[in-house]
C-alpha cells in the first residue's frame, strides 16, 4: 500500500517542471522594461591593431557582444551600466557608460588571463580558481575540421586522455581524466551540457560548443558528488551576441582511407603454404582491398546568431554524412539547435536551449566498436580468409566457407548482405530561469529533460559465424528519458577587500529506460532479399522487454571566499541519495576543500620576470555509482527456453548471478597541488599540477566460482591509487601585426597501482571479446598497475619450426599508457593560418591478437595468412598461444593529428564578410613500432575496458583523412 501511495505522488514530477515554466511566463507578462542605451566603438591593442573577437560585456549581466573583424562592437546596455572588455592576452578593462554613444577602448597587453570559466552550478574567473580545471574554447579547435566534440578535447588538455578506440564513424571514444579509478565500474567522465547532468558528447554538434571545461581534481568535481569521480566535462553551448546578426556557413568534405595494410600471403603463396589441396578460385582476392573503401564525409553547418533588444539567439543546423572505411557502412547526423535568452527585466532572465538530433548509422556494429557481430569475424576474418578463394564466383554466387585460413563465413559476403540500421533520435531541452533579488542574491532554476530513442533494425542475409545459417532479423528499441530540476540560490557579497559567495542547491533527477525487441529467424521462404519487414514470416520469433528507473535527490552547498584577491578558499559539500542502493547504503557525502594563493599583487614587483604566481591546493571526495538499477536484488533470468517437444520452446528461467545487497558507492579521494606561472607579461603561461587519488570500496566484478553459479558478483572491495603530473604551457612565441605564433604544450604523466583486491592477491580477467572462457589474458595484481597482460614467454621456434613457450604464466606487459602529450601550434601570417597538432602516447604495450591469430594456426584460423610465415625464423607448427610475448608489442606512438592550412578573404563586397578556405589532414603521419593498423585502437568497450586495455582483436583502425573546407561569414 505504501509503495503504491508513493508512486502516485511521484508521477507529477514532469508536470512540476512545466509548472515552473508557466509560473515564470506568467511573471513575464507583467514586466516593465528599463531604459537602454546603444553604445558602439572600436577595440584595439596598445599598438593600435584592431582586435576582432574581443568580448564586451555589460557588467553584472550576461549581455555581451564580440567585436567583428574590424574590432567594432555594438551593444545595447542599461543606463548607468559598466562595460567589461576582455580579450585573451590583454588586461580586462571596465568602462563606465556615460552619455556618449561611442566608446573606443585601447587594451593593455599585460595579460592576467581573466577568463570566466563555467564550473559546476556557477562560474569562476580563471584567476580565482582553486581547483584544477582545464579549458578548451571554440577558438582552440576552429582550425580543425571536426565532427565529434571529443576530437576537440584530444591533446588540448593535460590529464585528459582521449583515445579513439575504433575508426568507425560514430564510434565510441574513450576519455579518461587522470587515469582509471574503477576496475569494473564505468571510467568515462561525467558530461554536463549547459548544466544538465549526464549529457552525451557523441550526439552533440561540435560547432555549437562555446567551451569545454574539464573539472579534473576532486575539489572541482566534488560538486557533482557521486558521479564526479571520473572528472567532469562541462560543455557550454554558444549564445547569441550583440551586434549585427551573424550568419555563418561552414562546409567541409573529407576523404578517409585505412592508414596501412597488413602484409599477407597472396593467393599463390597461400596455396603453396597450405598444401596441394587448396586451389585458386576465381583468381583469389585481396581481402583488405575488398573490405576497406575510401570513405567520403560531407559536413554542412549553418548558424545564425545575434541579439535583438532583449532577445539573444543562436540557431544552428548541422548535417554530417560520413562513409565508413568498411564497405557498406555509413553514418549520418542531422542536428538542430536553438539557444534563446530573454532578459525580461534587468533582474530576470529566461533561457531556453533546445537541441534535437537524429543519428542514422548503417551497419556499424555496437557503436562501431567492431566490424562484425561475431568477434572472430570482421577485420579478423578479412585478414585470415583464404586469399586463394575469391569471395564471389564468376556466376555471382558467394564462396562462404573455406577449409584453409579463417573458419568464419566469408566476411565480404557477410558484410554485403547485412542491412543494419541504428537510428538514434534525441531531443534535449533545458529551461534556465534566473532572478536576481538584489546585487547579492540570485535564484536560478534549471529544468531539463533529455529524451532519446534508439531503434535498431538489422537484417542479416548471411548471419556471421562459422556455420551457414538462414537469414535472421533483429529489432531493438531503447527509449530513455531523464529529468533534472536544479534549484540554485547564490549569495555573493563584497566586504571591502574580501568577497564571499555562498551557493545552495537542491536537485532532483530521475531517469527511466524502456526497451523491447525481437529476434526473428527461420523464414518460411528462402531467397528473400531483405526481409526485415517480413519478420512475421519467420518461424522462430523471440521477444524481449525491459524497464529500469532510478532517482536521485541531492543537496549541495558551496562557499567561496576571496581575501584581498590573494587568498581564495572554496569548500563544497554534496549529499546524494540514490535509489540504486538499498536503505542504509543509499546516502553519500562528498566534501571538498581547496585554496589558492596568488602572489601576483603582493610580492611580485611590477617588472618581475613572473607576472603571476599562483599556488593551489585542494582535497575532495567523489563517488562512482555506475551500477544498474535493481543490481542489489537477486533475480532469475528469462530466455532460458527449451523445446521438449522438439518443435517449439517452453519458457525457461536461468540464474541471474549472485548479488551484494549491501552494495554502495565507490569513493575516490584526491589531493591536488598546482602552480600557475605567468611570465614575460603574460606571453608565457605555465601550469603544473600534481595529484594523488585513492579509490576505495571499488565496485568490483569479482569472479564467482562456477560451483557457486559462476559469472561475477558486483561488490565493494579493493583500492586503486593513481598519481601523476599535469603540465600545460601556453606561449605566444611571436606576436606582431603580421605574424602571430601560439604554441600550446600539454603533458601528463600518470602512474596507477592496485593496492588491494579485497583479500585475494590477484584476479585473472578474460579478454573483452571473442575468446573462449578460460583464455584469461589479463591480470589484476596487488602492487601492479591495472591493465597487465597475463601470459607466457615466447621462446622462438625450434629447429623443426615449432613455437616454444616458457612454462610459467606471468605478467608479460601492460596496456595502460603512463605518459601522453599534445603540442598544438597555430601560426597566423596576414590572411594565412596554419595549425599543427602533434601528440604522443607512451609507456604501454599492446596485445596484438589480430596479428597473433593469423601468424600461426589457431582455433579460428586453420592455416595462417600473414606473410610472416615465409620468414625462416617464424614458427610453422605448435600451439599458437595468443597471450604470449610474441604478440606483445610496444604501443607508443607519435602522431601528426591535425595539419590545417587556411586562407581568409575578408569582406567580399556584396557577398560575404569573410570567406575562409582551408585544407587539412588528420592522422597523416604516425611514428610507431606497432605492427598492427593503429596503436590507438582497442577492442574493449570505452566505459569499462580499463582492466583489459590495448587489446587489438580485429579493432577498426582510425583512418587517414584529407579535408577541404570553406567557412563563409555573412
Amino acid at each position, binding site marked *: 500500500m505504501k509503495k503504491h501511495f508513493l508512486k502516485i505522488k511521484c508521477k507529477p514530477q514532469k508536470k512540476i517542471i512545466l509548472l515552473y515554466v508557466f509560473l515564470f511566463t506568467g511573471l513575464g507578462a507583467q514586466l516593465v522594461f528599463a531604459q537602454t542605451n546603444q553604445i558602439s566603438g572600436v577595440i584595439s591593442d596598445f599598438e593600435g591593431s584592431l582586435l576582432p573577437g574581443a568580448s564586451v560585456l555589460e557588467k553584472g549581466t550576461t549581455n555581451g557582444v564580440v567585436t567583428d573583424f574590424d574590432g567594432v562592437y555594438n551593444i545595447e546596455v542599461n543606463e548607468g551600466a559598466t562595460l567589461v572588455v576582455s580579450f585573451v592576452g590583454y588586461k580586462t578593462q571596465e568602462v563606465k557608460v556615460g552619455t556618449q554613444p561611442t566608446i573606443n577602448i585601447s587594451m593593455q597587453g599585460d595579460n592576467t588571463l581573466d577568463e570566466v570559466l563555467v564550473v559546476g552550478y556557477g562560474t569562476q574567473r580563471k584567476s580565482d580558481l582553486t581547483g584544477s580545471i582545464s579549458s578548451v574554447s571554440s577558438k582552440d579547435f576552429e582550425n580543425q575540421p571536426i565532427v565529434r566534440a571529443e576530437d576537440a578535447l584530444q591533446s588540448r588538455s593535460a590529464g585528459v586522455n582521449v583515445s579513439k578506440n575504433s575508426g568507425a564513424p560514430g564510434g565510441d571514444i574513450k576519455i579518461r581524466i587522470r587515469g582509471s579509478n574503477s576496475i569494473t565500474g564505468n571510467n568515462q567522465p561525467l558530461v554536463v551540457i549547459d548544466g544538465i547532468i549526464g549529457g552525451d558528447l557523441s550526439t552533440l554538434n561540435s560547432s555549437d560548443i562555446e567551451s569545454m571545461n574539464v573539472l579534473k581534481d576532486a575539489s572541482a568535481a566534488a560538486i557533482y558528488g557521486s558521479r564526479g569521480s571520473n572528472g567532469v566535462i562541462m560543455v557550454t553551448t554558444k549564445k547569441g551576441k550583440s551586434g549585427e546578426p551573424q550568419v555563418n556557413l561552414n562546409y567541409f568534405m573529407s576523404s578517409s582511407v585505412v592508414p596501412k595494410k597488413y602484409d599477407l600471403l597472396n593467393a599463390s603463396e597461400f596455396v603453396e603454404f597450405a598444401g596441394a589441396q587448396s586451389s585458386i578460385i576465381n583468381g583469389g582476392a585481396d581481402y583488405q582491398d575488398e573490405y576497406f573503401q575510401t570513405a567520403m564525409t560531407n559536413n554542412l553547418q549553418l548558424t545564425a546568431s545575434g541579439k535583438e533588444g532583449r532577445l539573444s539567439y543562436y540557431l544552428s543546423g548541422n548535417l554530417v554524412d560520413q562513409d565508413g572505411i568498411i564497405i557498406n557502412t555509413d553514418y549520418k547526423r542531422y542536428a538542430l539547435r536553438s539557444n534563446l535568452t530573454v532578459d525580461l527585466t534587468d533582474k530576470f532572465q529566461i533561457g531556453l536551449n533546445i537541441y534535437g538530433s537524429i543519428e542514422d548509422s548503417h551497419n556499424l556494429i555496437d557503436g562501431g566498436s567492431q566490424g562484425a557481430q561475431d568477434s572472430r569475424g570482421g577485420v579478423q576474418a578479412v585478414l585470415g580468409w583464404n586469399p586463394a578463394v575469391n569471395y564471389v564466383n564468376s556466376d555471382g554466387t558467394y564462396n562462404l566457407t573455406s577449409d584453409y585460413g579463417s573458419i568464419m563465413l566469408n566476411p565480404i559476403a557477410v558484410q554485403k548482405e547485412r542491412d543494419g540500421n541504428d537510428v538514434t533520435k534525441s531531443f534535449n531541452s533545458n529551461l534556465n530561469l534566473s*532572478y536576481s533579488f538584489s546585487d547579492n542574491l540570485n535564484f536560478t532554476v534549471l529544468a531539463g529533460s533529455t529524451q532519446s530513442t534508439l531503434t535498431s533494425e538489422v537484417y542479416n542475409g548471411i548471419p556471421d559465424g562459422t556455420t551457414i545459417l538462414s537469414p535472421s532479423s533483429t529489432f531493438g528499441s531503447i527509449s530513455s528519458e531523464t529529468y533534472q530540476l536544479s534549484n540554485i540560490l547564490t549569495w555573493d557579497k563584497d566586504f571591502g577587500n574580501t568577497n564571499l559567495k555562498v551557493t545552495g542547491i537542491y536537485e532532483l533527477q530521475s531517469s527511466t529506460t524502456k526497451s523491447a525487441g525481437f529476434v526473428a529467424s*527461420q523464414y518460411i521462404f528462402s531467397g528473400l532479399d531483405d526481409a526485415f519487414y517480413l519478420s512475421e514470416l519467420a518461424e522462430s520469433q523471440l521477444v524481449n522487454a525491459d524497464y529500469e528507473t532510478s532517482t536521485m535527490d541531492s543537496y549541495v552547498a558551496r562557499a567561496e571566499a576571496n581575501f584581498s584577491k590573494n587568498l581564495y578558499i572554496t569548500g563544497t559539500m554534496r549529499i546524494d541519495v540514490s535509489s540504486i542502493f538499498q536503505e542504509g547504503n543509499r546516502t553519500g557525502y562528498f566534501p571538498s576543500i581547496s585554496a589558492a594563493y596568488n602572489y601576483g599583487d603582493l610580492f611580485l614587483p611590477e617588472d618581475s620576470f613572473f607576472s603571476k604566481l599562483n599556488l593551489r591546493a585542494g582535497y575532495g571526495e567523489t563517488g562512482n555509482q555506475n551500477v544498474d538499477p535493481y543490481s542489489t*536484488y537477486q533475480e532469475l533470468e528469462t530466455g532460458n527456453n527449451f523445446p521438449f517437444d522438439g518443435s517449439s520452446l517452453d519458457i525457461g528461467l536461468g*540464474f541471474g548471478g549472485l548479488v551484494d545487497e549491501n552494495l554502495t558507492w565507490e569513493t575516490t579521494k584526491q589531493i591536488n597541488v598546482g602552480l600557475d606561472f605567468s611570465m614575460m607579461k603574460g606571453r608565457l603561461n605555465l601550469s603544473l599540477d600534481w595529484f594523488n587519488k585513492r579509490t576505495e570500496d571499488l565496485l568490483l566484478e569479482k569472479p564467482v*566460482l562456477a560451483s557457486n553459479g559462476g559469472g561475477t558478483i558486483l561488490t565493494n572491495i579493493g583500492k586503486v591509487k593513481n598519481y601523476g603530473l599535469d603540465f600545460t604551457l601556453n606561449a605566444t612565441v611571436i606576436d606582431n601585426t603580421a605574424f602571430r605564433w601560439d604554441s600550446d604544450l600539454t603533458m601528463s604523466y600518470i602512474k596507477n597501482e592496485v593496492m588491494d583486491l579485497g583479500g585475494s592477491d590477484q584476479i*585473472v580477467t578474460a579478454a573483452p571479446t571473442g575468446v573462449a*572462457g578460460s583464455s584469461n589474458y589479463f591480470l589484476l595484481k596487488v602492487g601492479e598497475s591495472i591493465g597487465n597482460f597475463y601470459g607466457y614467454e615466447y621462446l622462438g621456434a625450434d629447429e623443426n619450426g615449432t613455437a616454444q613457450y616458457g612454462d610459467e604464466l606471468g605478467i608479460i606487459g601492460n596496456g595502460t599508457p603512463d605518459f601522453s602529450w599534445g603540442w598544438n601550434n597555430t601560426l597566423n601570417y596576414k590572411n594565412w593560418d596554419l595549425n599543427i597538432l602533434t601528440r604522443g602516447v607512451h609507456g604501454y604495450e599492446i596485445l596484438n591478437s589480430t596479428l597473433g591469430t593469423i601468424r600461426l594456426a589457431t582455433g579460428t584460423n586453420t592455416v595462417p595468412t600473414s606473410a610472416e610465415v615465409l620468414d625462416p625464423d617464424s614458427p610453422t607448427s605448435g600451439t599458437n598461444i595468443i597471450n604470449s610475448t610474441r604478440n606483445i608489442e610496444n604501443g607508443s606512438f607519435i602522431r601528426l593529428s591535425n595539419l590545417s592550412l587556411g586562407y581568409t578573404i575578408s569582406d567580399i563586397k556584396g557577398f560575404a564578410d569573410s570567406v575562409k578556405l582551408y585544407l587539412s589532414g588528420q592522422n597523416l603521419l604516425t611514428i610507431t613500432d606497432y605492427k598492427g593498423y593503429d596503436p590507438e585502437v582497442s577492442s574493449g568497450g570505452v566505459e569499462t575496458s580499463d582492466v583489459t586495455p590495448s587489446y587489438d582483436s580485429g579493432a577498426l583502425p582510425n583512418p587517414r583523412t584529407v579535408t577541404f573546407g570553406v567557412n563563409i561569414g555573412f
Partner: protein
Amino acid sequence: MKRNIFKINLWTNLSIMMFSALIIMSCSNLEEDPSEVQLETSLTTDDALEAVLTGMYRELMEGGAQWAQFQLAAFGGDDLTTHSASNKIGYRESDWRRQTSNTENIEMAYNTCYDVITLANIAIDAQNSIISTDQTTVDRLIGEAYFMRAFAYMHLTKTYGRIPIQLVPNSNDDLEKSSFVDIYTQIESDLLYAEELLPDVYPGVAVVGARPNNGTAKAFLSRLYLMWGGYPIKDESKYALSAQKAKEVIDNESVYGFGLHTDFRELWTEANRFNQNESVFTLVSCTSCGVRNRTMGMLGMPSEAGGWTEIFSEIAFFEDMQADAIENGTENRFNDTYVLEEIDRAPSYPIGSEWATWSDPHPLFRKVVGGDLSEDGSKSTISDYNIYFMRYAEVLLNYAEAIGRSGGDDPEAWNALNRVRTRAGASTELSNADGTLTDLAFLERKWEFAGEYLRMFDLVRTETLSEALANRSEVETVDIVNNIVPITSGGEEFYFSPIPQSEIDISPGLGD
C-alpha cells in the same frame, strides 16, 4: 506602481515555487521495486518451478552439450580421436592425455554442469515453499531437479574426478574438493530422491527419455553403482546394487516405455529421433528454435567431404571392431557404426572405406556424421539429432556386467547381453562357454557404444586405460615433429581432466 504589483506577484509566485520544490523534496521515491521487471529467486508456484526445470535443460544444451567439447574427456578413450593438427588442440590434448588446466574448452563441461546444479539447488530449496494444488506435479518437478543435479555431478566427477559439492543456492562459499566417496554418496542420495518422486511415465514429452522417469533414475543408479565398484573407490559391494537397479528397469521396461530399437542406424537420424524407445535420457533439439545439436554432421566429415575433421574413430579401434564383427556376425552393427560407402559431398566425394588415403586418415563414425547422409543435419554442423546420454542397451549391459562382477552367472544376465548382440546382427547367442559374463559384457559395451563418449569412463573404472591406449595403430598420426606423443599411463591426472584454470584462479586450492 506597476513595479510594486510585479514585486508582490513575484514574491507570491516565488513562494509557490519554493513550496512546490518542497513537495517534490518529500516525494522522490527512492525505494526500488524490482518485482516489475525481474523474478525473485525464491519460487512459490509450480509454474515457476517448471520454468526453472526447463531452464536447466537449456543450460545443459546451450552451455555444453550442444558442443562435442562437453565430452572432451571422452576423447581420452581408445575409440575417439580428432584431426592431427589444425584447430583441434583441445581434443587432441585429451586424446593424448596431455590436458592441462588451460586446455582449450576444458571449462565447458565444468561450467555447464554447475550451471545446471545452481538451478537445481534453487528448485530443491524451494520444494517446501511451493504453493500448489497439484502435488503430483510438484513431486515430479522436484524429483526431476534431484535427477538433474545427480546427472550434472556424475558428469563432473567422471570428467574431473574430485570436485566441490554445492547444494544450497545463493552461496559464495569457497568450497574445497570433496572426496570421491562423498561425491558418489551425494549422487546416490539425489538419484534415490529422484527415483522416489519421478513418475513411471513422464507426461508430455516428444520421446521417452527426453525427461527422466522413474526408470531413468534407476538406470543412472545402476551406472553409478557400476562406477562405484571400480576405480577410484573400488567398493565391489556396489556391483550387486548396480545389477539390482538395472534389473528393476528391465523387469518394468514396458512400464517405462524402454526397449531396443530394431534398426541401430536409425537412432542417429533426424527422421526417427522420436520414433524409437531406446533413449533412457536424451536431449532433443530444435534447430528452428535455436536449440541445436552441434556435435554431429559435418563435424565428423573429412576435409575431402568439406567437413570440420573434428571427431574421428581411432584406427586400431576400427580394425579391432571389424575383426570382432566378422568373428561374431555383428557386421550389421559395424556397418551402422562406420561410414564405408561413397559420400556424396564436395570437393572430393570420398569413399568411406578409403579413409586411409585421406589427408587426415581416420575412419568415420556414422554416429557422428549421421545415420542417413542425405538428411539436412548430416550436411550441416547444426542438426536436430538426439544427444543420447544413456541408451537402453546400456541398462542391459550394466545388468550383465554387474551380475558378472558380483560373482553371478544368471541366465537373465546372459539374456540381457544377448539381446544387445542379437540386435547387432549376431545369429548365435553367447553363454558361459564363450567366456565370463564380465569380460563378454564389457567387450560388448566397447562395440555397442563406440564413439558415444562412454568408452573412456569404462576404461577408467576398470583401470584398463593404459592397456587400451597402448593398442594404438602404427599409422595413427602422432606429432613426431613436435616430439609430442600420447601419454599412456599415470595416476589420477591420467584418468581425470584437471580443474579449469579459471576456477583455480579464483580458488587456488582447487588446483591441488
